[in-house]
């Protein structure tokens, strides 16, 4: 089967991996901070933040893509600013595909991390404080190690979402081979094209293999950390 894979298909696979990895790595730290804020802090606008984070989950993806286009397009307020200030362009680039994937994956990431933060006993954090650890140290040495399983779960979900994102991506950055044509978009195009069924099937197989690999990797890491976090002798 590998023999029949065309360079264009390899391109789609590489691009998907790049988009999903970038989206995941960039949104991970932000997701942990937002999850921590939602789980532990009481501040005005907390409910609004919660809704904003979850919007991409409940809105039609096309709407999310449309909003991204309005905000991050070259004419958009944020997109225009970034373009002029840093020369960072999202419109019709792979970076735009990564942004769309990251936004769509964000609620999954935040939910998984938030649940694991809520499961950490604040009494342990209190104990760390009495032993002299300031807030950031408490987070780095106690909270973070204890939420690693949740962070892994969130990362895998975000990565999978990034690999599979379709609606927001195609709306925001269109379907451009080599720039924004990730596996799902390539499959979609293949199915529209006469004689493209074999191509669609090959890409679908890639998609399944990558998803399975990501899951297997996360299971392996989770098992290694679960014993530690549970206080058992590893």
């Amino acid at each position, binding site marked *: 089967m590998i023999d029949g894979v065309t360079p264009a298909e390899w391109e789609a696979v590489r691009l998907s991996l790049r988009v999903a990895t970038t989206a995941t790595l960039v949104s991970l730290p932000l997701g942990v901070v937002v999850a921590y804020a939602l789980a532990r802090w009481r501040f005005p606008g907390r409910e609004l933040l919660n809704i904003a984070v979850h919007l991409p989950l409940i809105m039609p993806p096309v709407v999310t893509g449309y909003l991204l286009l309005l905000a991050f397009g070259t004419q958009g307020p944020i997109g225009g600013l970034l373009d002029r200030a840093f020369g960072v362009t999202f419109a019709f680039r792979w970076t735009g595909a990564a942004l769309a994937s990251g936004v769509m994956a964000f609620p999954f990431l935040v939910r998984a991390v938030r649940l694991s933060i809520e499961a950490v*006993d604040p*009494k*342990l954090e*209190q*104990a*760390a*404080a*009495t*032993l*002299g*650890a*300031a*807030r950031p*140290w*408490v987070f780095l*040495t*106690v909270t973070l*190690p*204890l939420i690693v399983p949740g962070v892994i779960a969130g990362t895998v979900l975000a990565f999978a979402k990034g690999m599979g994102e379709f609606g927001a991506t195609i709306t925001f950055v269109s379907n451009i081979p080599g720039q924004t044509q990730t596996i799902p978009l390539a499959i979609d195009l293949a199915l529209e094209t006469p004689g493209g069924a074999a191509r669609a099937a090959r890409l679908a197989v890639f998609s399944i293999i990558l998803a399975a690999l990501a899951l297997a990797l996360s299971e392996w890491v989770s098992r290694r950390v679960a014993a*530690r*976090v*549970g*206080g*058992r*002798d*590893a």
Partner: protein
Amino acid sequence: MLEVTLKQELPGFTLDVSFEVPTGLTVLFGRSGAGKTSIVNAVAGLSRPQAGRIVADGRVLLDTDAGTCLPPHRRRIGYIFQEGRLFPHMTVRRNLAYGARFAPRDAPREDMGRVVEMLAIGDLLDRRPGALSGGEKQRVAIGRALLAAPRLILADEPLAALDEERKGEILPYFERLRDEVQVPILYVSHAASEVGRLATSVVALADGKVLRQGSAAEVLGDPAVLPAGAREAGAILAARVVRHHADGLTELEAGGVPLFLPRIGRASGAPVRLRIAAHDVILSRDLPRGLSALNILPGTVAALRPGAGPGVMVAVDTPAGRVLARITERSARALDLAEGAALHAIVKTVSVAPGDVGGSGAAA
């Protein structure tokens, strides 16, 4: 030295206390709801009281008038929690070492090896807390607090979550902590048995007020401090070993009065802390004869305190120190007891305050 002054409105009562914690082990003693937890949280910085001042080792931790309230991580209070609260993802060794890195370089530090030896946790160092027994966890928690170079050690009912057997296992370690470490210890408890065994001084609380504070012997000899019905009520006497007799008895001396109890493993001249439970003392107006009891102390009634039931707590001043007796109200009437009445306290059981000789308490 720790100085605490606090005032706070709490649901149902007002906390209004002022006390000092000298070097040694001070038990903050009172039943649940007396305000112990509020005091502990204020000292550790886990809550912010309405008004008060807390000074530890010359350092102001809280002064509401001056607007000072140090956050917990800057107070250096070694808190031993009831449930241990060990970090589950760290080995025992890393738990123990956790606080040391945050302590100032010039803070007086305990040596890890010495603490590990004192608490007998050498075999646990590479294990994680999950598989440790309750007693082991609590020993590690003691070490972790101690190794953070604290100004004060705060223990909030550290034995309450353990069964009787485990309690007996941990108490000696608190005694070693008291005797071998210079840091003052504030130990919160509602169990009179722990007070009798551990305290060098006591702050007795009731309804948010300090009822009494002073040395353990002083406070525990005051019948007003302990409820008359309390089974654990009892006095502490300081005694000295005189000699061991051939018939298996050890003769002690307390304030010139000889006392006998089954042989204890201490050399002649050694000081011993004795505990005499109130329910093990019989009172007699006349010097009794033909009794099997060996220990009879002459004295006078210092105070009488009726309890809720038919019991009366009687404090008797003897040359050996103050002794408490729990008798029935009927007996008190029959003996015509009043303050200043002369009588004899017949002691059925004298126990050496357990940790002093490794847990032996015996009838004499």
